[in-house]
């Protein structure tokens, strides 16, 4: 289980995260919901060792989440908003690079793992193409495949549907659900309320760096009036 306890982060005088606490079980999807600039992405960046927290604890199975690059690499995976695929490499090389250089797999082993992932995400026939030739949806799937290659326990998605049409949003939601079924801990930062209807998740509404309301998505959709702030946010964004 991932436990995030009182995590605080400031940039200069501005408090970006203010005593943020929640936990994620294996197989659970936690959705950090909120407008731009409320601290959702910063929290994901802290989990991925791209920022340091000022205070608080992050525990994975009771142990502090390792933040050194070497130990962290197999613990947390990230699918970026802009995908951040390596555009000078082929589709397959985007996956094999870390397998060979970080995980020290042989070229053959890396190729086998990459092909399995690409087949699963319907990209096997694109393996030798440069990523610049992929569509938005294909890039999204490759970004997920790349994040999974090193077998992390936690997968973070930063605004996964911000640039996608409704059909692709459904595909992404299905991919996220599938990851949860495989017992990954999934954390999604988004302002896209349509995603909530497609994902069985726990919603954490954030405002000014704090979680101001939370609810399981089934409970929210069954009793919207009980969760006024989430309801207002959803109503304001729909």
């Amino acid at each position, binding site marked *: 289980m991932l436990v995030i306890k009182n995590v605080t982060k400031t940039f200069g005088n501005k408090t970006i995260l203010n005593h943020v606490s929640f936990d994620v079980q294996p197989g659970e999807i936690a959705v950090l919901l909120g407008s731009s600039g409320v601290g959702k992405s910063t929290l994901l960046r802290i989990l*991925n*060792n*791209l920022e340091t927290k000022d205070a608080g604890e992050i525990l994975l199975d009771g142990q502090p989440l390792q933040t050194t*690059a*070497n130990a*962290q*690499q*197999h613990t*947390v*995976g*990230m699918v*970026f908003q*802009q995908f*951040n*695929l*390596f*555009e*000078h490499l082929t589709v397959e090389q985007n996956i094999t*690079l*870390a397998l060979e*250089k*970080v995980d020290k797999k042989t070229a053959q082993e890396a190729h086998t793992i990459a092909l399995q992932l690409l087949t699963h995400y319907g990209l096997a026939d694109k393996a030798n*193409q*440069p990523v*610049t*030739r992929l569509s938005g949806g294909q890039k999204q799937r490759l970004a997920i495949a*790349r*994040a999974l290659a*090193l077998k992390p326990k936690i997968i973070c998605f930063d605004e996964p549907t911000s640039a996608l049409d409704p059909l692709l949003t459904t595909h992404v939601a299905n991919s996220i659900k599938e990851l949860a079924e495989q017992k990954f801990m999934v954390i999604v930062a988004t302002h896209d309320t349509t995603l909530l209807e497609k994902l069985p998740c726990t919603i954490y509404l954030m405002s000014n760096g704090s979680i101001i309301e939370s609810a399981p998505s089934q409970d929210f959709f069954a009793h919207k009036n009980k969760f006024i702030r989430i309801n207002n946010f959803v109503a304001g964004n729909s």
Partner: protein
Amino acid sequence: MIDTSIIVTYWPNFLHGALVTLEIAFIGTLIGISLGTLLGVFQSGQNKFLRSLVALYVTILRGTPMLIQITFAVFVLPQLGITLPEFWAATIAIGLNSSAYVSQIIRSGISSISKGQIEAGKVLGLTHVQIIRFIILPQAIKAVFPALGSELITLVKDSSLASIVGVMELSKEAWYVRSRTFDALTVYCIIAVIYLLITGTISFILHRIEKRMNCNASH
């Protein structure tokens, strides 16, 4: 009028000069690209001391004429106890001068790479050196390849400055042939054509490489 007998009589001189010019250009490019890449990476890094050191190096090398740098290497270094053959002193000076320019080309290439690429590498657990080697440099070099090509062509032409310290490259051979024949027009037309052939061939090869790189990226 062009006297073709000069070509027939002195072709070994022109050939020797062209080969020496190519040698200077090749070695100078090796020094310039390898050292310049390293310096460009240092200047794009977080270490303030290294950044300042590279900035000072670039200021000195770009701010003084290459001719002075070559004569410094040939005439001043021996006074400091470092004596090199004229060819090597001039070639190293040309290479070092080129490295200052290459470092700035590489630095601009690195700055054109989005931060997201570096972050993706970090999240995947790649080390800083691996991120530079496998993510930043391949993309940065591709972005600045035309500028690096221009620098290589400049270096070929700058190799003529080695003649000032007696290196028998193309310009010096031309000077020698002119002093024997007193036909400046023919001699300098010949070496102009040879320089054009060298730089034209390099341009053609670089263009093909660039085209191939662009092709690989889009197919």
